[in-house]
């Protein structure tokens, strides 16, 4: 067991953990944050996507010991209180959520994209979510939701 300290959804946390468990399991089992999903467990589906120091990564490929001192954002951390993040609202509005299994990862990949490129092209959106598989929507609704969010966020700024 080792003690790790990190920022989880903007709050400092400290926990005793086995160093060699996946961050995916740490989040789901020690923090009860079950929005982060396990699909493939080998980096191919993106259902387990989290933001690590602002970058989208697969939490099934990162080990607990590696996030000591890091900043972690999960799907549970992007709403402001009861107010959904504009990406979450637009995913719902555009029918980009069907079974919803891919949605947390899909939203976080889009979130990381918009932080870096506020006004992305279709190609840039496709590249950002290429590592997030969706069996339901056919992706068009997702791309629409991301574009709409980009517009709204620009208006707010």
């Amino acid at each position: 067991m080792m003690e790790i300290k990190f920022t989880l959804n903007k709050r400092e946390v400290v926990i005793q953990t086995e160093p060699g468990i996946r961050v995916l399991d740490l989040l789901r089992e020690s923090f009860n944050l079950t929005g982060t999903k396990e699909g493939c467990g080998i980096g191919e589906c993106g259902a387990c996507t989290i933001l690590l120091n602002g970058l989208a990564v697969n939490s099934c490929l990162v080990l607990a010991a590696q996030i000591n001192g890091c900043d972690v954002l999960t799907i549970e951390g992007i709403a402001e209180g009861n107010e959904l993040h504009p990406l979450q609202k637009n995913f719902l509005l555009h029918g980009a959520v069907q079974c919803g299994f891919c949605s947390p990862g899909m939203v976080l990949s889009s979130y990381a994209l918009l932080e870096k490129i506020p006004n992305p092209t279709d190609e840039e959106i496709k590249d950002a979510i290429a590592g997030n598989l969706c069996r339901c929507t056919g992706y068009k609704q997702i791309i629409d939701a991301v574009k709409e969010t980009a517009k709204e966020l620009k208006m707010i700024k």
Partner: protein
Amino acid sequence: MMNLNCRILSPGSLAEVLQLLADQNSSTKILAGGTDVVTGIKQGSKRFINTDLLVDINRIPEIKNIKKDKNKITIGAGVTFSDLCASEIISNDLPILKKAASTIGSMQIRNRATIAGNFVNNAPCADTVPALLVYNAVLEIESLTSKKEISLQEFLSGPYKTQLKPGEIVTKIIIPVPDDNYRGDFYKLGRRRAVAISRLTLAVLVRHENNTIKDIRISSGAITPIGTRFQNLEKFASRKNFDENLCRELSQKIGEEVLAATGLRWSSAYKLPVIQQMLFQLLMNLR
């Protein structure tokens, strides 16, 4: 819950890493982006069985930079594919490497996976290998008691095998900057666009003057057991006229070379004409 059941140490300097590796036994492994190590352990790969200590090298600043001085580019071993894609030095001077890096996995993979992890793992389908080979990449390898340079070609000894010895770490990739007269390209064929294992890759770098080939470098990945240069083709083309006929001859010959390197495999029937056509098109576009 999956537990790798091993110790993980995350030292903050290269000196500490070298000390840990020196104290090691054979069950110590370096952990970089983990995209091969974690999936390998999970899938029970023999190469990672019995690992009891992982030395995480993500916190050592010495291997994270990309630098250019005069005619040499130095890439830290821990540079990720996202870092490579975002680097102006790489875009301007090593566009084939940039193209190869940008085709790898997905954003999530590129944000973690490192350049050295790619060729140390040395899967036949490691996409940076053909690109680094045409750039004549040289590696710097350190241990507690030694520091040496070795060419990438020599370092790669077989599928999933390299010359890396216990106690050693790759610290840098050193690439002589090709002058402005070189042009090149990279082509990757996968089953689909993203998160696809390469079926065939090809990299070409060529310098010609008045239509005569002065220097040509051709390498492939995935189709050959490891990424490799085609020195016979390069010799054959040297000083010849860079015309359609030569492009055709070279693409004919690459088929023979690949057959010789692999023996006949069930997949060759479709792969050979594909690699021939790929090379032909790459060469024609570079004329």
